[in-house]
């Protein structure tokens, strides 16, 4: 099983722990992740709101690289997932639009063909590897660990484009958490946005939204699990900025799964998480 690995700016630049754990878990489960030479930022969910054609062409340029490699794309950021999925779908569905964008891409020697898929890593785990297979690979399950899962927005929405899971009652991530032996709990406003996009406009709003969720999760769970670098940074940073000691570790999903698969704490980059997450080790069955 082989994929073109689209890491995305935030993970590439700032979250070694997320990238390391993704690569280790993929390796452990027989998923080959191949780097995409010459790839850039997906364009961001912002660019989509600023200029339609530019956004499509910048995203399509990256998709073309995967097409040239003959591989489907794996992403680890909700934003990249949405941007690339949306462009891929729009250009596959609309021939006139595809011609216009291909006219732009022609100048740089590229052409969008529409022959690959875009999948978030969790989707590869759930659909391509499968829960049964993962369960059979879990050598060191968690026992009694309660997890507050945060899906984030763009994995699920806009649902007519993403077709990932039920946008109002998703279960994919919960299932992937439960398979490690940990228990994904229900908590109020579980699907609420981290509002990371507002950080550069009204910083205080984002930090308070973050802290509110962290405080809620604290009542129901021992740790929080994310599948997007931007959501991760909001829930980690809001605690680091608050005038009290941070007490809800935020963990990237592949780090959680990796531990259950028998991989080591440092190997999964967990020492890179800025809120000490070592408490989760005591929930691992020996």
């Amino acid at each position, binding site marked *: 099983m082989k994929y073109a690995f689209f890491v995305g700016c935030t993970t590439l630049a700032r979250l070694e722990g997320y990238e390391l754990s993704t690569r280790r878990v993929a390796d452990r489960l027989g998923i080959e992740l191949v780097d*995409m030479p010459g790839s*850039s*930022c997906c364009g*961001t969910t912002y660019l989509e709101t*600023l200029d339609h054609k530019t956004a499509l062409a910048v995203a399509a340029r990256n998709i073309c690289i995967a097409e040239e490699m003959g591989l489907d794309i794996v992403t680890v950021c909700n934003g990249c997932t949405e941007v690339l999925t949306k462009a891929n779908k729009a250009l596959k569905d609309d021939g006139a639009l595809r011609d216009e964008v291909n006219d732009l891409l022609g*100048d740089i020697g590229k052409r969008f063909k529409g022959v690959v898929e875009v999948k978030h890593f969790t989707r590869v785990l759930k659909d391509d590897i499968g829960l049964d297979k993962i369960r059979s690979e879990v050598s060191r399950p968690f026992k009694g660990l309660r997890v507050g899962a945060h899906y984030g927005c763009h994995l699920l929405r806009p649902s007519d484009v993403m077709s990932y899971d039920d946008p109002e009652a998703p279960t994919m991530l919960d299932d992937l958490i439960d398979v490690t032996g940990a228990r994904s709990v229900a908590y109020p406003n579980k699907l609420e946005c981290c509002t990371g996009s507002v950080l550069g406009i009204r910083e205080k709003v984002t930090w308070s*939204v973050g802290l509110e969720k962290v405080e809620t999760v604290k009542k129901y769970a021992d740790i929080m699990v994310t599948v997007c670098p931007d959501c991760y940074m909001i829930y980690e940073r809001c605690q680091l900025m608050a005038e009290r000691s941070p007490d809800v570790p935020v963990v990237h999903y592949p780090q959680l799964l990796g531990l259950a698969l028998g991989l080591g704490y440092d190997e999964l980059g967990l020492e890179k998480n800025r809120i000490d997450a070592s408490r989760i080790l005591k929930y691992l069955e020996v």
Partner: protein
Amino acid sequence: MPEEKEIRISQTEINFRRRLSKVPGAERLMLCYQCGTCTADCPVAMRVEEFRPRRIARLAVYGQKDRLLNGDTLWLCAGCYTCYERCPQKVRVSEIISALRKLAVEEGLLHSTYKALMKSIAETGYIYEIGEFENEMREEEGLPPAPKPEVGEIETIMKKTGFTKFIGGG
């Protein structure tokens, strides 16, 4: 009872509404019946009094260009698509806001925070610079160097669409 006032929309305002409705995604603007589901479920509106998605839809129907394009209003949308999912009329205020931002860009009113991000993509290929320092850090962790984007290709695309001039480039 408040005094009833007749609202008259000028031709300029009608023209602006027409221009807006032609932006992909904003076609269903006139179907908004102001139920307020968007505002009620908006994570930003819950905390920021001046951000009212329902009001944005109303002002758009009235073609209130200046009130919509000036200030921070449009840039406070987190793009979470909650209103998109729940809008009973499929007007989808998130899409109206996205369309209004495109018009703001055309009017030279792109928010400075967004402009800086877009400039970084144009100049480095990433939203943050990922240079020697970052790659050394990556190497220490046993990670391969970050892909080196073909910046010239992105520049070519942005020049051809005309986006370059909106982010302060040639």
